[in-house]
């Protein structure tokens, strides 16, 4: 008997298709059901499970399970479930479907065994995630969503072009395996396309631009999937590529510096995504078993605590309607639970002992040290300082602790499911911090590193305490202002006005002219479509509409046709 292997992605895609037809009350339950089902499926599927489909020329490998893809699959499915609980109160079907499609796409990329399948799911992710930005409905989200979509379509196009170029070269097949850039320009293009999705500067601005404009619940999903699937693909296809180490290290600092300047809490968190992904890229770039383990465990933990951070920021946005530090403050009295759940995530990302950042981020940093990349190690630790400053100190301080709540700020109560979702995620942040073996068991390589060393504690405690002291003393300087910090998107946003006026508008006008002509042509064709037989019979008077009774050929005509055809056929047959 053939074992029925169902790709987990298909479960989520099927869920997305079914949601619109389910009654409204059951939709949120269905969402959780489908995500949970896919999680259980991943947890129970054995290594080496494979599902192939032969099309005309290629053997597509839709599902291929191994340790690397399983660990990513687990966290993706889990965060989809947690996000589903967090967004339980959402009634809009579009958002729910988009989130399921997005998660399904991420699972599809993770388990894809060939590049075509990977690409298809990649594109599904891009489109569905754009919807999560657009459904916020503000004018900024419209524009930011469009920029986001254009960027991702560009990245996807580069990836696809790279795949095609690579496949046209010698000895290439479509299986997802490790590639080296020496193999040709196609591979470079693929790398570029993936890097765009990983938000590597200078191609990262879509993330800091669009994530803060997404919906409250959408941002949680956004934070989990796009960049981490890119990390997965890099770990699968380009491990040990040195340039990733350099890019990654730079990213960690880049994100942290911008985060210190920003005012919008979700933009701060978005820049910290860039910073944390830098750790993952650096780990992939180093390429040793420990480094890859570090990158993967960091991705896993990061998804957990980043989602929790966005959930917390989402609660603030949902309850106050505001998301800028200058407009809020002193919320701790109103939302103590949110505050403490956020702080669990903040402690995790800062690497506090007993939380999951401690057992994951440091693996990457230590791997850098083991591989004798001391500069990288130091820079990454510096970025950790900045991370604590930004996420662990600046953000919560100005949101929940400092000053009093502005008098005109109304704080509603969040729906209880948001807190439940946060609690579930926070639980695992702490659980892995105390019992890291639970996470380590899923890592692709055996783990020989122990996070609970004296050195590690000493280092972490000293850094954290003194960062805090400096923050406290310099907190006046850090106070956010209402300015925005220009990033590389300046290069395509600023010239937009001029480009529009001198290049786009004339094009538009010429297209309008062409379009008018086409409409005229379409009108003529439509008239023709009403009665095509007018070609053969010119009707002088009366209406020209087709009616079967007027144009019915007589039986004699039919018989004559047969006869005529026979004569033709016979002549042809006999002559030739």
């Amino acid at each position, binding site marked *: 008997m053939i074992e029925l292997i169902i790709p987990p992605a298909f479960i989520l895609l099927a869920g997305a298709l079914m949601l619109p037809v389910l009654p409204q009350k059951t939709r949120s339950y269905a969402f959780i059901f489908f995500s949970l089902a896919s999680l259980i499926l991943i947890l129970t599927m054995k290594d080496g499970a494979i599902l192939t*489909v*032969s*099309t*005309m020329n290629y053997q597509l490998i839709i599902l291929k399970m191994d340790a690397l893809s399983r660990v990513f699959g687990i966290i993706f499915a889990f965060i989809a479930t947690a996000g589903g609980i967090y967004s339980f109160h959402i009634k809009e079907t579009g958002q729910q479907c988009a989130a399921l499609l997005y998660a399904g796409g991420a699972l599809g990329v993770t388990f894809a065994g060939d590049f075509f399948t990977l690409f298809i799911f990649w594109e599904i992710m891009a489109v569905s995630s754009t919807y999560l930005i657009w459904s916020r409905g503000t004018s900024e989200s419209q524009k930011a969503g469009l920029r986001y979509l254009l960027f991702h379509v560009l990245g996807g196009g580069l990836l696809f072009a790279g795949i095609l170029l690579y496949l046209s070269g010698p000895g290439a097949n479509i299986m997802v395996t490790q590639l080296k850039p020496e193999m040709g320009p196609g591979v470079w293009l693929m790398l570029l396309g993936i890097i765009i999705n990983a938000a590597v500067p200078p191609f990262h601005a879509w993330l800091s631009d669009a994530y803060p404009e997404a919906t409250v619940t959408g941002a949680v999903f956004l934070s989990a999937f796009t960049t981490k699937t890119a990390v997965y693909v890099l770990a699968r296809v380009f491990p040990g590529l040195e340039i990733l180490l350099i890019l990654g290290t730079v990213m960690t600092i880049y994100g942290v510096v911008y985060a210190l300047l920003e005012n919008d809490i979700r933009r701060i968190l978005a820049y910290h995504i860039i910073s944390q992904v830098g750790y993952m890229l650096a780990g992939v770039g180093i390429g040793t078993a420990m480094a890859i383990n570090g990158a993967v465990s960091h991705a896993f933990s990061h998804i957990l605590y980043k989602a929790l951070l966005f959930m917390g920021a989402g609660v603030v946005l949902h309850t106050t309607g505001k998301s800028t530090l200058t407009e809020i403050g002193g919320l701790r009295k109103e939302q103590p639970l949110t505050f403490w759940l956020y702080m669990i995530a903040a402690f995790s990302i800062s690497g506090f002992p007993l939380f999951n950042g401690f057992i994951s981020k440091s693996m990457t940093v230590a791997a850098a040290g083991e591989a004798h990349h001391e500069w990288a190690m130091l820079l990454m630790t510096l970025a950790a300082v900045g991370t604590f400053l930004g996420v662990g100190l600046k953000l919560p301080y100005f949101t929940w602790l400092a000053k009093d709540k502005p008098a005109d700020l109304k704080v509603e109560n969040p729906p209880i499911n948001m807190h439940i979702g946060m609690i579930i995620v926070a639980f695992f942040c702490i659980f892995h911090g105390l019992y890291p073996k639970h996470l380590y068991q899923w890592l692709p390589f055996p783990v020989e590193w122990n996070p609970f060393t004296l050195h590690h504690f000493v280092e972490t405690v000293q850094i954290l305490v003194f960062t805090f002291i400096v923050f406290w003393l310099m907190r006046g300087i850090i106070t956010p202002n209402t300015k925005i910090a220009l990033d590389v998107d300046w290069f395509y946003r600023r010239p937009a006005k001029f480009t529009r006026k001198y290049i786009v508008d004339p094009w538009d006008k010429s297209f309008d002219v062409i379009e008018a002509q086409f409409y005229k042509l379409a009108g003529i064709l439509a008239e023709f*479509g*009403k*009665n*095509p*037989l007018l070609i053969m019979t010119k009707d002088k008077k009366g209406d020209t509409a*087709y*009616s*079967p009774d007027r144009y*019915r*050929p007589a*039986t004699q*005509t*039919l*018989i004559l*046709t*047969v006869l005529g*055809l*026979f004569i033709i*056929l*016979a002549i*042809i*047959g*006999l002559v*030739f």
Partner: protein
Amino acid sequence: MNLTNNSPVLIPLLFLSTGIMTPVLAMKKEWLARWIALGASAASVALSIFNLIRVINVGKPIHYKLGNWNPSLGIEYVLDHLSAFVILVINAIAFLVLIYAKKSIESELPGKEVPYYASVLLMLCGFNGMMITGDLFNLYVFLEICSLTLYGLIAVGEKKSSMAAFTYLIMGTIAGCFYLLGVGFLYIKTGSLNMADVRAILPFMLDQPAVVIGLCFMTLGLGIKMALFPLHGWLPDAYTYAPSVSSALIAPTGTKVASYVLIRIFYFVFGITFVSKTLPVADIISWLAVVGIIYGSIMAIAQKELKRMLAYSTVAQVGYIGLGIGLANPFGLIGAVLHILNHAVMKACLFLVSGNFRLKLGHSNIFKLDNTIRKKMPWTMAAFTIAALSMVGLPPMAGFFSKWYLALGTIEKGNWLFLAAILVSTLLNAVYFFRILEKVYMKPIDSQSSNTHEQGTYHDHSVKENEETVKRDEVSPSMLFPTLTLAAALVVLGILNAIIVDGVIKYIIPKGL
């Protein structure tokens, strides 16, 4: 009685016997007729599946001698992949439509159930016989059986159906005569009526004019039955004015059986080299088919009535099958056979939908459809949408894959015009199907009939009132179930098309192609 060995003959026998017995058994209890028909049809489906599995297991064609008489004196039934496949398609569709038939017949043909079901059974006997026989004259016999019942099934429709049935009668008789003449010519030259025999003997006398003329006659005869352009003239009227169930029964099956016979004649009796290289008959067929595709699509756009539109659409779709046959390469043949399956399912589903409309709305006029139908009959519209998307050829629905194979066939032949025709016709199909979808899903209520609504007053309260007063008025489950099953089948067949092609259709390709 050994079931396995006799399996090829069981299906026609079953239908023949039940068809003859029905009027007798149901004389007093009229409701019995329907159950006999359903039972026979269900049994035929089971037997068809059994036959198909048997052929797949054995791997070679199974020859069955009727009454143990040896050919060519005796009649032989041949069960190979092609015949088993097409038989299964036809019987399965017929079964589903028969489930559907109850309410529709009651509303359109009250009091005539018994003769109707009996005719249906005889028609199915004719079809099955045509598909399984390996004897040329035996095929003619079954052809006439099914034709006669077809005329009857069409003639019981609305007012104009008699005229339509009469035209079909004339054309169908001509078709039968031509076919018989063709068989006669072959018999004179080869001395045998058995297809395999003729196949063996013909290569020695291919240059004889009689053989050529015989081929022409048979092609024309089958072309009329198949409604290949320009021999399609009988089809629009016949399909439009027939009762809903008849259309749904005949449209998916009648032309397909004729296409099947054409494939048999071309590839298995005359041999492909004769038909395509020696004589350009296959080429002519493919050219005619392409014109038919475009013609059918354009005419379908012009139609106001749904059934007529579907009829012209059938002309176009038969063009696809003809194109596949005429291409004379493996992809073309795969595309043609796959399209036999796909089109049968799609057309059946669409005609069932039009039957639903007729039952609930009283008409199937496209221009009278509006937004309320979306709420009144959501499941019907869902089935229609899936079938429409499949006709246009959107993956993953089944229709896409047969067009894909046909396109590959045209590319392999190097005939870019045909490829363009396939693409253009896809666009044309989209026009006339999406027009309906737009009317049902997007057109506001009362925009044409009521003059008191101004342009700007389509805001919430007036639309909401109308929406609230439109209640769900879906057809009964016995009618809904087959419609939805066929629609779901389209998706399933699309996804599984690789299995179908690999498992069954690949073996149909004769050697030397």
